């Protein structure tokens, strides 16, 4: 049997664990990662030369982060690691990869997408003002760049990142103007038993709230964002409290988000089948119990497959690697796979409780004011989108995009897509799962035309 070429896309917790398992079994995977440093978003490494300690950078997660980075470094030549590599298309059994300004075509036999996730947002008035960031972006600034997004920061949304990032900022000595959760207090209380049953991970989450309180930072429940105030930069945040009264708090930066969403554009181009995941309220790539997609030879792991956090990502990374070993005639993986399944089952209850404690507030998307920018790239307002729907009658999101330009810009709807789908579903009087899914287009991220003047690879 000729040796198979296995490519892993993504070097976060899922991709790294998968690479480790494959390397242990004598397979030397190609690991392509868009970032210049391994670790993914959650365990993003500090730039070369920065010498902050793991404890300082990752807090509670220090040991896991260090273990991950050490394990990855120990792989050395046993993997073919290529950082700074943007995979921008999948055509049959070939990837188009842009690296250092040069395009390359890479053939594969097996492909694992460990492409991670990005922040999910809902537009609100003023959200395009410089100084408004995603929660994940605020965390990247702090962890990766040792920078704070502001001197006095408002954090809001509905996301497990909300208390965590606010606490990380407070611990770094930044003034936190307040933490504003859109989820009503009663939903938090209802989720509490599940969080408590989640063992140390659940307790750790609750401890963030306690530590915020100890630092005198108020955690507001059931708020509705009204606007980020300011013209060229943010000067305040206006919101309605749970009782519907409007308030304004001064700040020079805002971070917000509503959980995270899978980055699955490449799996879409590869032709993988999708399903709507009701728990996380988003589309995801369908996989079997071991991470195989509907396309033979293509596998998924981590948050790019289903949002569940770093611990689960590492487990599903190992699971997909073992599925690849089993599918390529390697030794039986039954015992190892059942161990992973048991460990994942322990995470499942807590994950459900977290999804309930931080639900996606679809009503905020439906209620975006008409004069609020919906699509940042194309600067289309929510009212213009609604008018296009009313006038032209699209029955799913791709037609709505063609009629309105919403989701047609550089980000391909990554940012505005979830909210646009909610608005369309509302206008159609259907659940959002029946409003369609924005199709991905190559290149999945913009690439310079100049890249093609210098091309290499087996099919170029």
């Amino acid at each position, binding site marked *: 049997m000729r040796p198979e070429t296995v490519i892993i896309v993504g070097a976060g917790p899922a991709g790294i664990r998968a690479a480790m398992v494959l390397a242990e079994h004598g397979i030397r995977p190609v690991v392509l990662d868009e970032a210049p440093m391994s670790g993914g978003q959650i365990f993003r490494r500090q730039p070369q030369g920065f010498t902050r300690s793991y404890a300082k950078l990752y807090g509670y997660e220090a040991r896991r982060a260090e273990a991950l980075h050490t394990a990855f470094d120990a792989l050395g030549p046993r993997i073919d690691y290529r950082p700074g590599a943007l995979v921008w298309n999948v055509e049959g059994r070939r990837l188009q990869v842009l690296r250092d300004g040069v395009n390359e075509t890479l053939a594969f036999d097996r492909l694992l997408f460990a492409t991670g996730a990005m922040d999910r947002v809902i537009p609100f008035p003023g959200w395009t003002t410089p100084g408004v960031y995603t929660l994940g972006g605020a965390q990247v600034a702090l962890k990766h760049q040792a920078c704070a997004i*502001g001197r006095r920061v408002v954090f809001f949304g509905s996301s497990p990142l909300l208390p965590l990032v606010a606490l990380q900022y407070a611990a770094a000595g930044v003034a936190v103007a307040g933490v504003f959760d859109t989820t009503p207090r009663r939903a938090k209380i209802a989720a509490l038993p599940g969080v408590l049953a989640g063992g140390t991970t659940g307790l750790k989450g609750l401890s963030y709230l306690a530590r915020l309180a100890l630092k005198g930072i108020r955690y507001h429940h059931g708020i509705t964002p009204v606007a980020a105030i300011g013209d060229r930069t943010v000067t305040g945040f206006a919101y309605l409290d749970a009782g519907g009264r409007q308030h304004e708090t001064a700040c020079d930066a805002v971070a917000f988000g509503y959980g995270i969403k899978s980055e699955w554009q490449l799996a879409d181009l590869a032709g993988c089948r999708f399903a709507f995941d009701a728990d996380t309220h988003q589309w995801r790539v369908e996989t079997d119990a071991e991470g195989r997609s509907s396309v033979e030879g293509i596998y998924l792991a981590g948050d790019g497959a289903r949002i569940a956090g770093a611990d689960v990502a590492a487990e599903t990374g190992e699971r997909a690697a073992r599925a690849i070993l089993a599918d390529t005639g390697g030794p039986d993986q039954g015992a190892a796979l059942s161990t992973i399944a048991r460990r994942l089952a322990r995470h499942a209850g807590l994950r459900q409780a977290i999804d309930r404690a931080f639900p996606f507030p679809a009503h905020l998307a439906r209620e975006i004011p008409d004069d609020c920018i919906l699509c940042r790239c194309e600067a289309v307002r929510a009212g213009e989108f609604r008018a296009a729907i009313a006038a032209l009658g699209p029955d799913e999101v791709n037609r709505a995009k063609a009629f309105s330009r919403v989701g047609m810009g550089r980000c391909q709807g990554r940012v505005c897509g979830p909210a646009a789908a909610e608005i369309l579903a509302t206008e159609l009087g259907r659940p959002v799962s029946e409003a369609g899914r924005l199709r991905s287009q190559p290149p999945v991220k913009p690439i310079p035309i100049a890249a093609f003047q210098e091309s290499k690879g087996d099919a170029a």
Partner: protein
Amino acid sequence: MFRRRAQSDPGLPPVSIRFEGRTIAATGGETLAAALLAAGEEVFRASPVSGAPRGPFCLMGACFECLVEIDGMPGQQACMTIVRDGMDIRRDRIVEGEE
């Protein structure tokens, strides 16, 4: 306003870049987005459609709001670019229909 939390590591080389003709001191290893933001530059470009000021939003390479022109090459993601000494940066001036 964005700001650095830590003093520069002694082992990191100081780097000098230019933004719209203004010289900015940065630290080797940091991203161009962080360097510009920490220097007080929050507006990276104007929306090519509306002309409204825009700056970095996701800081992880997904939203394309931090695009700048680096050494004459437009449309570069400042959050995914590590600063290099002597970089000459301008606000991105791509307008709709020119791409």
